[in-house]
C-alpha cells in the first residue's frame, strides 16, 4: 500500500520531538479525522534553524511530518512556505489516494508554525 520511502520515514522518522523554547508553533488536525500534528520551529536570520514534529496519526501522517521537517530545515521562511503538498508527496514517492490529505496536513502545520513565529515577532 505504501511506498518504501513512506515506510522508511514512518519507521525511522527524522526530527521528532518538540523544541522547548520554540519560536513558532503550528498545531493542526483533529481527533475526528485521526490526525493531529504539532510542528515547532526555531528561526535564525529568517531561516529555519531547527524544526521538530509530534504526530498522532497513521503511517502517512507520520511520514509526511518527518519529510516536511527534512524539506524545511535550513530553508528561509519564504522558501519553506513554498513547499507544496505535492513536494512532500513526491519526496515520498507518492501516497495512496486515500491518504493524500496527510500531505496537506503537514504543509498546513508548517505554515501555521511560520505564521505563529511572524505573529509573535510583530508583538
Amino acid at each position, binding site marked *: 500500500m505504501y511506498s518504501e520511502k513512506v515506510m522508511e520515514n514512518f*519507521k525511522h522518522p527524522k526530527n521528532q520531538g518538540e523544541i522547548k523554547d520554540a519560536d513558532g508553533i503550528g498545531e493542526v488536525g483533529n*481527533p475526528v479525522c485521526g490526525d493531529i500534528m504539532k510542528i515547532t520551529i526555531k528561526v535564525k536570520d529568517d531561516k529555519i534553524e531547527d524544526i521538530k514534529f*509530534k*504526530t*498522532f496519526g*497513521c503511517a502517512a501522517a*507520520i511520514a509526511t511530518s518527518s519529510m516536511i521537517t527534512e524539506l524545511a530545515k535550513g530553508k528561509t521562511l519564504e522558501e519553506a512556505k513554498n513547499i507544496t503538498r505535492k513536494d512532500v508527496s513526491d519526496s515520498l514517492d507518492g501516497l495512496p489516494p486515500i491518504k493524500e490529505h496527510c500531505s496537506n496536513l503537514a504543509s498546513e502545520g508548517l505554515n501555521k508554525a511560520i505564521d505563529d513565529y511572524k505573529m509573535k515577532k510583530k508583538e
Partner: protein
Amino acid sequence: MTDKKTIYLDNSATTQVHPEIKDTILPYLEDLYGNPSSIHAKGQEVKKTIDNARKQVADLIGAKETEIIFTGSGTEANNLALKGIASKNKNKGNHIITTRIEHKSILNSARWLETEGFKVTYLNVDENGTVDINQLKEEIRPETILVSVMFANNEMGTIQPIKEIGEFLKGKGIYFHTDAVQAAGKIKINLKELNIDLLTLSGHKIHGPKGIGALYIRKGTEIDPMIHGGGQEKNIRSGTENVPGIVGLGKAAEIANKNLESNIEHLTNLGKKLEKGIFKEIPDLILNGHPDNRIPGNVNISFKYVEGESIMLMLDCEGICVSTGSACTSKSLKPSYVLDAMGKEIVFMHGSIRFSIGTFNTEEEIDTVIKTLPTIIKKLRALSPIYNKD
C-alpha cells in the same frame, strides 16, 4: 512473500486453510471436475459430495441438511437473508430491525432496502457492545417482518443475547436472522435450542476456503432468490456450484465441530494470556467489548494517545499481523463505527487494535507479541502530541 516467522493474529479477517481441507479440495481440482447438475457419472459423483458437505455444515449448527444453501460468501448470504425475506414478505409488512454494529453486508443491505421503501430500525448497543433487548421489544411493530442481530461482533467479539431474542420473537410471525460468521467454530451453536430462522456462515473464517458461504434457512421460511438462473440450490441461489469451495466448507465445518471444545479452550487460553500480558506491560489501555461475554481469542484494545494504523504497521514490520477495526474498514479513514456505537471517546477509537487468535496460533507467538508491543507503543507515544506523560 512473507517468511515463515509471520505471527498471524488477524483470524477474524480471514484464517489459514486447514491442511486437511486443502487435501479434501484437491481432487475437485483434478479428476472430480463434473458439474453436479449433469446426470452422467461425472456429474453424479460430485453431486453426492455436495450433499455430504451440506450435512457437515448442518451438523455444525444442529440443522437439517436440507436447510443449508451455499452462497459465494458470507456477504452474499447476509444479502440474501435480508433482501430475500424482505422481497418475499413485503405484503406482510415493511419494517426490519437490526443493530448499529452489524457487518457492512447487513448494514448496506438494510440501507439499500430503505431506498426500496422499507423502514429499518438500527438498535443501539451499550458500552460493552451488547444490543439493547428492551429497545428491541419496544421497536417491534405490526409491520415488522424481520429481525437481524449478529451472533457475535467481528470487531470486539461481544456475544449477543441470541437465545433471548429468539424466545421473545417466538410465535410473533417475525423472521429472525443471525449473522454467525464470527461465532461459528468458536461458540457452540445448536439450532434445536435456539429459535432462529436464518443463519449466515462463511468458509474462510473457520479455516475453510474463501469465496464460499452458507445460509441456513429453516424449513417453511418464505424467501425469494436474489440470483436467478438454472435453479441450483433449490432455486434460491442459481449458478454452477462452487464444488471445491463447497467441499472445503463442508470439511471446515466438520473439523470445527469435532474440535469445538478444544478449540474454544485453546483460543480462550491464548486470548487471556495475550490480554493479561499486554495489560501488565503497557499502561493507559482500554479493553473494548464485553469483558467476559465475547468470542474466545478476540482481544480488542485501545492504546490511548496513539493511532491504530501506526501500531498495526509497526507490528507488521515485526511480522505480526493484526487489524484496526474490521478488515473491511481497515482501508477507510473513518474510525470504527462499532466503537462509535458503543460510545467510545473518538480519540481512543482511532487507537484500537484487534488481535484475533486462531487454531494455529501458539503460546510462543503470544509471548513474542507481548514482548514486541511495549517498544512500539512507547515509540509512538513519544511521537504523539497528545501524550504528556514523560
